[in-house]
């Protein structure tokens, strides 16, 4: 009997594995599965971490003694710029994204993230972008204006070399991966939780990641816009940040910190999620105050967007405005306090097992709380004026980031290691690693607070003897090297464990969450059948769950039609809505990312003629990617025995794709709002803003263009509404008509742009208008192309009454395009007219 079950399970495993695994050899480059991609993110991120750490060691060597000349000032500026950039953009965020990508589907009982090809695209963009940035270091032309790239220091006048371009283009490229991870994590968490996992039963880690993903959606676009504008200023002579012509360097600081501050919490939230996941497991007690924690997460997600000016307390903003930000900054102490004490309450009421991950959690507490306190100090304006831009801030920031991110990350690493390798690491070596790291870290940075208070500014390559800083710097350097040894021990421990580690039992920590219900090491498809959830701690309440999953007692236990399938469910209740069929291995993400990388390299080398074909090829591959959807043979062609209850997602009207589009439009809308902010900011606060009496854009043609767009979108919405009712006659004709009207609108808009006497290299006013018009054109053009493709797909029956999915995905894009058009019309044309000259 038992043998028969084992045999049956093995057969199921082989059938599922055939559908879910990637081809060996070169086929690994076509992999899209979240386990593979997540691990790649983690490993790549750790390699970048080592590079960033090496740069830090060089910095500490240079500063160990006064008046040293081990590195030149020019190189030193590259070192600290790259250290910050690498650690923030190429290590912290990608690694946490990778961890989330690896864990989330397993925690919510799904087989993959909802947009697997997007995971792969994100990874390649991250890797190529990271390599482009690193290459500048090898070529000795690395960015050297600080990781914050303040203008005018980073402008072409004061940084004529290509360093800043590497930063701006490379980082923007890398950010594609952050945005794509953000979108797919949101949609995955909201729409692909397994049966019965309502919001209140979701593992608390998912709440953290949901908040982080939304913060990426709203936090990254300001920097992306800022980078695009600064690169336009550097490469094409536009004016946004240069005072002559009407720009303002403060605009850059606003855009940068609008991203930069939320980013700290984008890094902290997933790490806190690890803490909230581990503490209940090691206390063997459900998290005390789940609702409090959820409250704290939501509050943190919002409040952290209201703090950015506390990085700008010394730029000369009215001090009442500073006080608003000071108060908001301190308010963050409340959700932090709630979490710290909810964790305390959990530990208080449980029997705590003091294993290695728990040691790192305690390390986290000490270091992070200390950093939090110096954070509250820094939020106090009069104190901030003294220590801003000194080593005190360097110390604070490392306490927060290393404490708030690195310590929980290593705790999580040790905790989930058996899940990846099936082996346990060495407790003894691990403890050595911890203590070396902990002592080294505190030695380096605790003393650095004092160095800062004694007046040592940041970003100085050397210092004189006699200022009272010698001993402190030496101690910091020694501590830095001890930290380095600690890192080496940890890496050694992890490397050795793959070979010598004791085989792990299933669910070795007796955890409560679903990721431990998978076989260890994990299979390509996670779960042989997708479990039904009744409580928040399924593994504690149903210890036989792994076995039952493997025996195929739950849903989707057999692959049908060779499709990769997972559940699609209601965002709130977790009731089943559809079967989501996921794309299998694909070369398109790698190809698209490669051509985007080529485009970036062309932009860097200023070979613009080559950049255009590279860009077109990338777009072509992305369109081909969109082609392999719906009822296309590569996706899910119509079958005779299709499951109707629940249906395949491509046969529905409100599938994950539409959600993905809406979330993407939120990010896009934030980018646009940042541009709008820039416009109003320069208008009201730019020191030498100038606007012509008559707007340069012809009013009536623009109005006509808007009228056409309105008609087009109304028609499109009408067509889609009919399709939703199952009426598809005349759909193709209707789509072509919408396409045609859209095209006329596009042509009119293009004419408006070309005919307008805009001089973007002369004034910031014209620069902003030009960017705005190009933004509108881009959207209209893309919408027309996508609608045309839909018309063709209707003709060849990939789309229709039976598969109405895709026109519904496209609808929010059209509505968005219409929305930004009229907002632009009001803000850039009507308002200046009403005001009397914009």
């Amino acid at each position, binding site marked *: 009997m038992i043998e028969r079950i084992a045999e049956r399970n093995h057969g199921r495993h082989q059938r599922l594995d055939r559908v879910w695994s990637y081809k060996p050899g070169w086929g690994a480059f076509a992999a899209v599965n979240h386990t593979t991609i997540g691990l790649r993110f983690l490993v790549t991120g750790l390699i970048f971490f080592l590079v960033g750490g090496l740069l830090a060691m060089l910095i500490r060597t240079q500063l160990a003694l006064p008046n040293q000349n081990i590195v030149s000032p020019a190189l030193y*500026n590259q070192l600290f710029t790259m250290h910050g950039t690498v650690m923030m953009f190429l290590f912290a965020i990608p690694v946490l994204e990778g961890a989330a990508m690896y864990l989330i589907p397993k925690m919510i009982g799904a087989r993959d993230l909802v947009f697997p090809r997007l995971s792969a695209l994100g990874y390649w963009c991250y890797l190529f972008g990271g390599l482009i940035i690193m290459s500048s270091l090898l070529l000795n032309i690395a960015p050297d204006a*600080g990781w914050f790239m*303040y203008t*005018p*220091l980073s402008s072409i006048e*004061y940084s004529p070399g290509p360093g800043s371009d590497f930063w701006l283009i490379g980082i923007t490229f890398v950010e594609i991966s952050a945005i794509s991870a953000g979108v797919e994590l949101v949609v995955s968490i909201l729409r692909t939780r397994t049966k019965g996992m309502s919001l209140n039963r979701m593992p608390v880690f998912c709440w953290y990641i949901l908040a982080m993903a939304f913060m990426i959606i709203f936090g990254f676009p300001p920097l992306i816009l800022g980078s695009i504008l600064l690169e336009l200023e550097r490469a094409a002579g536009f004016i946004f940040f240069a*005072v002559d012509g009407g720009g303002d*360097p403060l605009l850059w600081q606003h855009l940068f910190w609008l991203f930069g501050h939320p980013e700290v919490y984008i890094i902290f939230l997933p790490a806190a999620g690890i803490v909230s996941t581990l503490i209940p497991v090691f206390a063997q*007690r459900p998290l*005390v*105050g789940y609702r*409090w924690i959820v409250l704290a997460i939501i509050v943190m997600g919002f409040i952290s967007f209201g703090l950015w000016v506390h990085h700008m307390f010394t*730029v000369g903003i009215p*001090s009442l405005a500073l*006080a608003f930000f000071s108060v908001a900054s*301190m308010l963050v*102490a*409340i959700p932090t*306090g709630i*979490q*710290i*004490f*909810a964790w*305390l*309450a959990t*530990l*208080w*009421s*449980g*029997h*705590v097992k003091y294993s290695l991950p728990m040691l790192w959690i*305690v390390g986290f507490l*000490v270091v992070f*709380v200390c950093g939090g*306190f110096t954070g509250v*100090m820094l939020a*106090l304006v*009069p104190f*901030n*004026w*003294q*220590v801003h*831009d*000194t080593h005190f801030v360097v110390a604070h920031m490392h306490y927060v980031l290393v404490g708030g991110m690195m310590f929980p990350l290593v705790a999580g690493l040790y905790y989930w290691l058996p899940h990846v390798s099936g082996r346990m690491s060495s407790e003894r070596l691990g403890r050595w690693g911890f203590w070396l790291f902990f002592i080294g870290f505190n030695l380096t940075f605790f003393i650095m607070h004092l160095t800062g*208070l*004694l*007046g*040592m*500014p*940041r970003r*100085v*390559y*050397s210092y004189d003897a*006699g*200022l*009272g*800083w010698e001993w402190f710097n030496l101690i910091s350097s020694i501590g830095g090297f001890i930290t380095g040894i600690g890192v080496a021990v940890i890496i050694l421990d992890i490397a050795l464990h793959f070979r010598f580690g004791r085989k792990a039992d299933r669910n070795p920590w007796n955890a409560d969450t679903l990721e431990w219900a998978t076989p260890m090491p994990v299979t390509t498809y996670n779960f042989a059948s997708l479990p039904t959830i009744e409580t928040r701690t399924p593994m504690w309440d149903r210890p036989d769950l792994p076995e039952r999953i493997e025996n195929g007692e739950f849903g989707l236990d057999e692959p049908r039609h060779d499709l990769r399938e997972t559940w699609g469910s209601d965002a709130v209740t977790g009731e089943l809505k559809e079967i989501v069929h996921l794309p299998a291995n694909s070369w398109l993400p790698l190809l698209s990312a490669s051509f985007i990388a080529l485009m970036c390299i062309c932009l860097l080398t200023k070979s613009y003629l080559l950049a255009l074909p590279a860009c077109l090829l990338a777009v072509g591959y992305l369109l081909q990617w969109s082609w392999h959807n719906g009822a296309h043979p590569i996706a899910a062609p119509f079958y005779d025995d299709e499951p109707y209850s629940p249906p395949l997602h491509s046969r529905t009207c409100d599938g994950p794709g539409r959600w993905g589009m809406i979330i993407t439009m939120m990010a896009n809308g934030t980018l646009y709002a940042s541009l709008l902010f820039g416009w109003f900011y320069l208008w009201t606060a*730019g*020191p*030498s803003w100038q606007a012509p009496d008559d707007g340069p854009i012809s009013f009536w043609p623009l109005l006509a263009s808007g009228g056409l767009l309105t008609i087009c979108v109304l028609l499109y919405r009408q067509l889609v509404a009919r399709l939703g009712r199952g009426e598809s006659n005349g759909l193709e004709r209707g789509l072509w008509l919408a396409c045609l009207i859209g095209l006329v609108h596009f042509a009119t808009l293009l004419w408006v742009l070309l005919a307008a006497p805009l001089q973007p290299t002369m004034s910031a006013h014209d620069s902003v208008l030009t960017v705005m018009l190009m933004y509108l054109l881009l959207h209209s053009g893309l919408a027309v192309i996508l609608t045309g493709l839909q018309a063709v797909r209707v003709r060849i029956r990939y789309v229709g009454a039976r598969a109405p999915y895709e026109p519904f995905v496209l609808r929010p894009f059209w509505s968005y395009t219409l929305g930004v058009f009229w907002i632009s019309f009001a803000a850039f044309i009507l308002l200046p007219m009403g005001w009397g000259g914009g």
Partner: protein
Amino acid sequence: MTGIASCLLLSACSGPLSSLDPAGPHAASAALLWWGMFGFFTVILLIVVALWLYAIKRDPGTVSDVEAQRTQNRWVLGGGLILPVVSITVILLVGIPVGRSMLPLPLESGQALRVDVQAHQWRWEVSYPDTDVGLTNELHIPAGKAVDLHLTTADVIHSFWVPRLAGKLDTMPGRTNILRIEADAPGTYHGQCAEFCGLEHTDMRFTVIAHEPATFDSWLKEKQNDD
């Protein structure tokens, strides 16, 4: 014993650029804020860490859900809400008025002396309005009197900072920022650029020389006659 420790501490805190060795009212209140917050937060940090370690060590016996709920209410309400709210309120009640006192508000008696300071890559140009006195990397002020520095820049962003006298303020392209400084007693005070401004940022230092008010007036006159 305590005497020796505080002596060591105090001597460790002095230094030509030390913000903990204040020589002006603004720097003094900032240093006071530091010591107050440092003491307060050290105590809280020690308590929180001790609580955690005890919670890990202690044997709770069997805890029912009702008891866990009570623990939660006690800790989360007490530690997570009341503690931060009270701390923040106290800090802001003290801190905001202190911040206000550092602003270049109109004085009750007379006007603050105005000095123009323009930052360049990588030097400071100082000029005294209504005179033709111009100095480089050297600023003379009367001691015991409020001085308003009108800060501008000729190129990138810099930041004017004399740690022993007052906090720092950036020089922004296209703008004039006003920083009020005051030295308690005559003497030489060191300053430096605090905002990264390029290759020679490290060497962008300057000195502030405070005179007795009478000496300052004669210095200014003499200087003017020289030029």
